[in-house]
């Protein structure tokens, strides 16, 4: 007798996250606000455990839930990176949560729920699962953005994100319905079989679906929410926003493009190339005008998404490998950068402008050194990790014949280097401002690991490259 139960083994991490969320909510409900630290600790444990489960899964492709769930090397890679980002951003929020007015246990629960959505999104095998995961992730994010509900900026950020997110979800749904209408199926593999030639309806559907996905990766021109939300949301929330959801959205972007639409590559390539160029250029130019470090990092992340999309535009295994490596390195660099932003506190109050970093090299030389390394890496200066990330995507673009895209990318990264280097200049050459408060231990640890990875990644890049290569091959 065939089993009525779906193959649950493949979705163990998701199950774990779902159960954890329920248990944590109950603990919080019974113990009240004072349980925040406990819940936070357990949430971190759950995320780490889920990550371990993901890594322990065999390197094979499992299709479950009638094609709705795909567990393959690609999803394992992206889930691992996302869960890493989620867990670390929770670790970074320990100190922040410890302050009385922010002590809310819901935050950790929301992170776990959002991570569950992220995992479902990455594993999505059809449009329904995609939408399900996306909404689970996003709804949690909306609430997280306004978690500091006494702050006008935080609530405004949450509201803006919600309204625009709803609009993008509408576009995604409209696009999905067009795809379904013109192919007669929602399953990616089935769509790939039917969509062999670009028709107007199909391409319109692709445009709308991609618009929704671009919103989630904050690619131009669907990026407008990013600076406001990054700036308005509490910094640990921003750190989470900048990492795990981005990775998930990029993963599903790649999956839809490569798995569902392999025969209309030429059509969607144009969209991706346009969005990629627009993101790289706008990210570079707009960041120059920023004084607030969080807004600066917002534009920086817009630019980086543009660079990652260069790899997708190549539409080759090398290109996808480039995207995966890029996202992994991006997550590490971003977490390190936000650690520094979190450490920018004077007299117990956070400060956020770039000028507050003045003379950091003299007041906190080690922090300045690591932040300088991160900035150099974000700018893509050899031999730091950020350079190798860009190298792989540009290499793929060149091999795919997308010379224009590669050249524009390099030019944009030169322009962008200006604002990263300006941060270094302010830290090293300006007159020192008042010293920051002491840095909590967990932030030091995160910053240290991030800095070491960034600086020394080039020594032994093989494991990440090979894992990303294996993940990329699973899609083709």
């Amino acid at each position, binding site marked *: 007798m065939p089993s009525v139960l779906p193959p649950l083994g493949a979705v163990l991490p998701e199950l774990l996250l779902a159960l954890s969320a329920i248990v944590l909510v109950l603990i919080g409900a019974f113990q009240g606000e004072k349980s925040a630290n406990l819940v936070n600790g357990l949430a971190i444990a759950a995320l780490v455990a889920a990550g371990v489960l993901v890594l322990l899964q065999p390197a094979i492709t499992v299709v479950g839930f009638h094609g709705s769930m795909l567990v393959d090397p690609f999803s394992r890679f992206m889930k691992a990176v996302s869960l890493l980002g989620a867990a670390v951003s929770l670790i970074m929020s320990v100190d922040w949560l410890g302050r009385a007015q922010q002590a809310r246990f819901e935050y950790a629960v929301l992170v776990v729920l959002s991570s569950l959505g992220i995992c479902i999104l990455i594993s999505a095998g059809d449009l329904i699962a995609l939408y399900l995961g996306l909404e689970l992730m996003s709804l949690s994010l909306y609430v997280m953005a306004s978690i500091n509900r006494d702050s006008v900026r935080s609530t405004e950020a949450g509201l803006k994100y919600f309204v625009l997110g709803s609009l993008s979800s509408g576009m995604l749904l409209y696009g999905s319905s067009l795809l379904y209408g013109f192919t007669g199926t929602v399953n990616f593999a089935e769509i790939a079989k039917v969509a062999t030639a670009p028709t*107007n309806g199909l391409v*319109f559907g692709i*445009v709308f679906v991609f618009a929704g996905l671009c*919103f989630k990766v904050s690619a131009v*021109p669907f990026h407008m929410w990013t600076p406001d939300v990054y700036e308005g949301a509490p910094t640990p929330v921003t750190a989470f926003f900048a990492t795990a959801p981005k990775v998930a959205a990029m993963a599903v972007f790649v999956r839809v493009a490569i798995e569902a639409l392999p025969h209309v590559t030429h059509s969607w390539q144009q969209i991706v190339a*346009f969005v990629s160029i627009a993101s790289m250029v706008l990210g570079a*130019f707009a960041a*120059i*005008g920023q004084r607030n470090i969080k807004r600066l990092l917002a534009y920086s992340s817009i630019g980086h998404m543009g660079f990652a999309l260069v790899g997708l535009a190549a539409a080759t295994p090398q290109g996808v490998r480039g995207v995966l490596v890029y996202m992994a390195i991006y997550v590490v660099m971003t977490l390190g950068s936000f650690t520094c932003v979190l450490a920018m506190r004077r007299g117990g109050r956070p400060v956020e402008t770039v000028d507050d970093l003045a003379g950091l090299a003299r007041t906190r030389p080690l922090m300045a050194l690591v932040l300088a390394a991160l900035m150099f890496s974000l700018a893509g200066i050899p031999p730091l990790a950020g350079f190798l990330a860009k190298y792989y995507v540009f290499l793929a673009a060149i091999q795919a014949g997308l010379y224009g895209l590669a050249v524009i990318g390099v030019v944009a990264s030169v322009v962008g280097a200006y604002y990263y280097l300006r941060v270094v200049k302010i830290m090293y050459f300006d007159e020192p401002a008042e010293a920051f408060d002491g840095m909590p231990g967990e932030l030091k640890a995160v910053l240290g690991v991030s800095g070491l990875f960034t600086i020394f990644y080039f020594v032994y890049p093989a494991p990440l490259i090979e894992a990303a290569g294996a993940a990329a091959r699973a899609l083709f």
Partner: protein
Amino acid sequence: MYQAIVFLPLIGFLIAGLFGRVLGPRPSEIVTTAFLFIAALLAWITFFRVGIGGADTRVQLMHWIYVGDLKIDWALRIDTMTSIMLIVVTSVSSLVHLYSIGYMHEDPSRQRFFAYLSLFTFAMLMLVTADNLVQLFFGWEGVGLASYLLIGFWYEKPSANAAAMKAFVVNRVGDFGFMLGIFAVFVMTGAVNFDTVFAQAPGLAGKTIPFLGHHWDAPTVIAVLLFIGAMGKSAQFLLHTWLPDAMEGPTPVSALIHAATMVTAGVFMVARMSPIFELSRSALDLITIVGATTAMFAATVALVQNDIKKVIAYSTCSQLGYMFVAMGSGAYSIGMFHLLTHAFFKALLFLGAGSVIHAMHHEQDMRHMGGLYKKIPFTYGAMMIGTLAITGFPFLAGYYSKDAIIEAAYASHSHFSVYAYWMTVLAAALTSFYSWRLVFLTFHGQPHDHHHYDHAHESPLVMTIPLAVLSVGAVFGGIAFYNLFVGHDVESFFRHSIFMASDNHILHAMHEVPGWAAYLPTGMMVAGFAVAYWFYVVDRTVPVALAKSQDALYQFLLNKWYFDEIYNFLFVRPALWIGRTLWKKGDGMLIDGLGPNGISARVLDVTGQVVRLQTGYLYHYAFVMLVGVAALITWFMFAGV
């Protein structure tokens, strides 16, 4: 031993240059001076062993450059030419080191001064021991560098900096010719080391170098190019302008570099390259013309200068002209002879002038001096000896070497021998005049500046000893070496270190010049002395009246034939104009404007526009998203899917 001569000054330079601040001035002075005296002693031993004894040798130090066909060793070539230069350089340098201990005793950065002096000496020794043209060029540039550093030693004086730069830039012109000459030698012979080049030199006769459609005679091209290098270094006519300005440097520097050694490098180089110069009559004629012109021109300018060092500087320039006349006449040994004697009496004159300046608290204008012989009798005596030597008073150094040059000019087969003869004879009269004028203005008559005069004092022993030693050289330098350089022993003394073509009989011919031609220079010397005596001792109103009546000529000479003004108009101002145009318009407006600055300004413009898009209004954001989707849809509708 030969290595010690060359490298002791370098070690001294390193010690004084690197550790001078730690050691303090006195140890630096002692170390560098002691090393130089050891080197000088060894150099004299070398002179007797190699020059007199004939023990030529070659000391290989290392392989320097081996690239394809170009093989350059670093080796010391020790022959008679080298040994002459070794004694000149090390003797004068050691005496100048000693003298400087006294002369510079108030200067706070004496260590640096002594380091530079030793560096110069090392570079000069590299130059004279060179075994190939590239090594020679290394020393050539090294002395140029040291000269630049020492002229600008008092770098807080703008005039010193300007003079240092001028010396460097004018020398570049000559060096460019020299480099082209070296390249031409390499092209024609495939080698730069002297032995190979000289062995192949006879084969060059009749060969041509094609350039701009003409076929130029190879030996002439090479010789002229090399001579242009010599003109720069030895301050010959047209490239002489840097030498008077170089007097901005401390006086011991003027004595060492700008009188005795570096400026004679050009003469040495021509003598060293005699196997090539002998092949080209045209090149030798050019050398004769330039030398004779310089001798005359510089002497005329020296007549009216008032700065005591400027007079001696122009005198140096003029005497270098004499040496080149000897070279152009094919009498290389006589040129070298004058180089040797000149080194002694000119260093003596400079150091004597330095002693006067020292006594007068750095007053250099002769019009403010006078009557000093009572105050500084020893210096007066030394200056008298130097003046007698340079004017060619019988049996002193200049009498033998300078008169030999004038005779050689008369006897030479050059097309310009008559010109050379009369120019050098007239210049001899002028030399006598300006030299005696200097002595009379400085030491005789009434003191003009009583404040300085009253405080004038004789120099300390470290300064007077060098004067004494050089006086001995100035008195006996001529008579002692006459036979080796001019007389019967020339061939056995110089052997292969200079080359004279088989039809070059100048050394015999000059002994057969008519009596009047041989005695005329001495007569001229007496005439010059008489006029000077009349002008500056008997009746001082005469020169003033003369200057007034011949004002145009006086101004012409006082302004040094307006060379600085002409060069300023012809070269300096156009160069500055070109530089300023390229800087302000080319680089500033065009390259920076369209390049870095322009692009960054445009980037900021774009940034300003982009940032303004971010209004904070929700409906703007939504609008941008919808416009994005609409644009993509439109694109696909019109461009096709």
